[in-house]
């Protein structure tokens, strides 16, 4: 029941927000998102973290004669993703307080509506419900990016939209095929999919149908071409939603709907995927080094980070998977923080060009500290959240193939290069015209950044809080894969 409440509360709140005229909408939206966070904490308290099974489940008939049910529930991985979503959404809403977006009611209603889609993706235990929610999450973010974005938004967002729809339609075709292979009157339940025994030829093509959908969403090289433009043109909150949470839909999709469903398909293609992921790591990093625009730089760095997560989970060992899960949380926290800091800088100087900034440390001590912490988290310095994930992921990749591990390990060095180069250009040096009268963080900005920075250290220092939640679920998943 709590799962259903978690799923529908944001949608209900969105309808409420839609009715509010003027900038009051953001306050209501924020409160609604906080309530959602409280609900997720309640779900956490009701959750048995020792068990890898699906809990807090609810299943209602949807299209009864076809065996399609409205089936939701959570295991450890889902729960962590839900917590990430409910933790980030209030912060994202709070981070928008300084903007006066036109039609605020529609803007905030879309964010909340998207939250329903995101939660739905993470709790869906039925393939068609998953697909349904997958698209429900996409429509609001398209409108957020296309209506409130910057100059080039229209061309860029339609590319993003058509690209992701194309991927997900392939997923739909694969789901329909899998569904028709289930015995009896057919069922699209996740466990029915896990119990299928398909020939390795059909697993081989189903693998690609599903992988393309997830790879576009993450995005994995070479399916990433929509990403930098879309991140750059979206409004700051849209970018945070896309990079902080939506990207995790793709990784989560791999964990729940790809690896356990077509294990033979995975064993046929895992090397190809690892190579693509590792190309993505190096490629994303090198391009990030060359960027002059802050948002584009972080966008490309995101390609590199996601490449490592993808490489880790396709190794199919416990370190890789656990590292992938924890890194999803870390990446969500870090990237939202970094995009917020870019938004802060942009709102004061009206530029994101590294060369026209500089010397911000002199005026804004607190901002510099928070920026540094988030940045080090993204680089993966020990004691920060990035370290835990990258360590586990890299050790997973090393176990798989030492050469792959070696190349993937470049990410640490390259990340330090582009991140520190960015920090140096923006924060140190002499003040430019634009940064001369830079003011430090406001109360509202602190309220967003402090929870994020706390999470950077929490995950970095006590990763077991989170790893222990996902461990039974990951082991359960591995036992299904290795069956």
């Amino acid at each position, binding site marked *: 029941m709590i799962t259903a409440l978690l799923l529908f509360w944001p949608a209900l709140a969105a309808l409420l927000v839609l009715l509010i005229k003027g900038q009051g909408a953001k306050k209501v939206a924020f409160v609604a998102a906080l309530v959602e966070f409280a609900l997720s904490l309640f779900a956490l308290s009701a959750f048995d973290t020792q068990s890898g099974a699906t809990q807090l489940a609810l299943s209602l008939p949807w299209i009864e004669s076809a065996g399609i049910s409205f089936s939701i529930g959570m295991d450890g991985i889902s729960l962590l993703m839900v917590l990430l979503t409910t933790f980030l959404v209030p912060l994202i809403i709070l981070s928008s307080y300084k903007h006066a977006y036109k039609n605020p009611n529609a803007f905030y209603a879309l964010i909340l509506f998207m939250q329903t889609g995101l939660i739905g993706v993470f709790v869906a235990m039925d393939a068609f419900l998953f697909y349904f929610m997958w698209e*429900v999450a996409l*429509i609001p973010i398209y409108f957020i990016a*296309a209506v409130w974005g910057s100059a080039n938004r229209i061309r860029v967002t339609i590319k993003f939209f058509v690209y992701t729809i*194309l991927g997900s339609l392939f997923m*739909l075709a694969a789901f*329909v095929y899998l*569904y028709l292979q289930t015995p009896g009157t057919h069922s699209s339940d996740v466990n029915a999919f896990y119990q299928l025994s398909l020939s390795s030829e059909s697993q081989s093509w189903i693998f690609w149908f599903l992988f393309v959908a997830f790879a576009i969403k993450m995005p994995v090289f070479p399916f990433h071409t929509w990403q930098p433009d879309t991140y750059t043109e979206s409004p700051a909150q849209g970018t945070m939603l896309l990079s902080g949470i939506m990207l995790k839909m793709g990784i989560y999709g791999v964990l729940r709907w790809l690896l356990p469903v077509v294990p033979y398909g995975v064993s046929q293609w895992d090397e190809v995927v690892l190579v693509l992921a590792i190309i993505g790591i190096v490629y994303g990093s090198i391009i990030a080094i060359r960027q002059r625009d802050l948002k584009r730089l972080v966008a490309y760095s995101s390609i590199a980070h996601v490449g490592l997560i993808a490489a880790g989970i396709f190794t199919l060992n416990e370190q890789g998977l656990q590292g992938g899960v924890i890194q999803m949380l870390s990446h969500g926290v870090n990237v939202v923080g970094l995009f917020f800091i870019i938004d802060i800088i942009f709102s004061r100087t009206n530029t994101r060009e590294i060369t026209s900034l500089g010397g911000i440390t002199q005026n804004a001590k607190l901002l510099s500290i928070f920026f540094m912490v988030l940045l080090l988290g993204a680089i993966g310095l020990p004691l920060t959240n990035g370290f835990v994930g990258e360590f586990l992921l890299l050790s997973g990749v090393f176990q798989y193939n030492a050469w792959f591990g070696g190349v993937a390990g470049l990410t640490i060095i390259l990340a330090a290069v582009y991140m520190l180069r960015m920090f140096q250009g923006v924060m140190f040096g002499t003040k430019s015209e634009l940064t001369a009268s830079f003011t430090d963080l406001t109360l509202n900005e602190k309220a967003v950044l402090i929870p994020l920075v706390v999470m950077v250290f929490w995950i970095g220092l006590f990763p077991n809080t989170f790893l222990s939640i996902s461990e039974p679920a990951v082991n359960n998943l591995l036992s299904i894969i290795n069956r």
Partner: protein
Amino acid sequence: MTSIILLSVFGIINLFAGFAKNKQVLLPLVLVFLAVVFGVNLLDWNDTQTYFSNMLTVDNYAVAFTGIMTLTTLLLLPFSQRYIDKGDSNLAEYYSLLLFSLVGAVMMVGYENLIMLFIGVEILSIAMYVLAGSDKSSLRSNEAALKYFLMGSFFTGIMLFGIAMIYGATGTFNITEIGAAQAGLGADGVMDSMFVLGILVLVIGISFKISAAPFHFWAPDVYDGTPTFFTAFMSTVVKTAGVAAFYKLMAAAFAASYAAWFPTLVAITVLTLVVGNIGAVIQTSFKRMLAYSSISHAGYMLMALVAFNESSDTSILFYSAAYSAATIAAFGVLKLVQDQQRSADYEAFNGLGKTNPLLAFSMTVSMLSLGGIPLTAGFFGKFFVFSALLQNPDMLWLVVLAVILAAVGIYYYFRVVIAMYMQPAANQKPVRVESFTAFTLIVLTILTILLGIAPALVSELL
């Protein structure tokens, strides 16, 4: 059956009602008529009867499609409010012709005899030829009527030719008997060539009616030239009736000779999907885009026919319902916008999101539905069609093609959404919408979303 009689009688009554001084009574009158027909039609549910010495069967298939087509017409009519306000003197005739056309459509979903199919197609078409040219002062409307009439009569002739050949081969017009007669024809493993030719010619005739490629060339010009209100009828009811008749024909009469017509049908389907979707991309006129989009949707419906299994009828039924609801709303909004902007191009919709949020929202939901995005009926339409087709795993390639083209579809459906929400308004004056029309739009939008959340309402019927 009762619905055919009622519709005919109501059509005639309506003609006489046209003599009334006050034209305002006409719309409520015809709406009540249609509501009565809808209700009476439902009485035949689960009560299969044959009429006119086995010329017509009213089974659940016929009742379900009649219901959808009646409801479609019912929800379309409020958009004719403008004709009344303008004092159009031929209004009663328009309504009567629509009702007569519906009679033809109802026959097409319940026929038991090829002659009845032919009569149904003719009744449906002749009324439409007239309505296509109803805007007498417009050259384009005249062109549309002439083109539609010439092409239409040519292809009806072809259909009749096919029927004659099948009669020649089997000695009967009754579709069930034709189905049974095939056993004798194919006994030596070679199909009778006249019979096969008859099937193919008949398939071509019906393909024309549902504007399937390569017999679609008339459609863009006719849809574009016909007054928008009637284009909406043409691309919903006519298409639904055509596809329903097509499936009934193949299932009842030609199931045994599946192998003979299957490759042709696959070729038509592929061509229709490609021509419709690619053609729609390059249009600058929204109305012309909808014409091509209706070709592409004929292609998706034909996919259910290609599947040819027990899920086909449900898929076609659901797809028609989803497609009709979205298409009427789209044409309805187009008509309102067109009346004000004097243009059916994408640019006419610029800034509609700001000036008329309701129209823009309805249009967006319709476009999402036509594009097949979840939360709308169109998603389940595509879902049922794909599931039906994938029961034969060899057809995976066709699903893949359809998937790619569906993504192309998103592009052209979203052009109007982009125009409405992201382009500045050319004309800050809101489009005038009568409250009853607005109410109808809300009903259509709710229907589209409702079927997108609870598809079982329609999909469990058959």
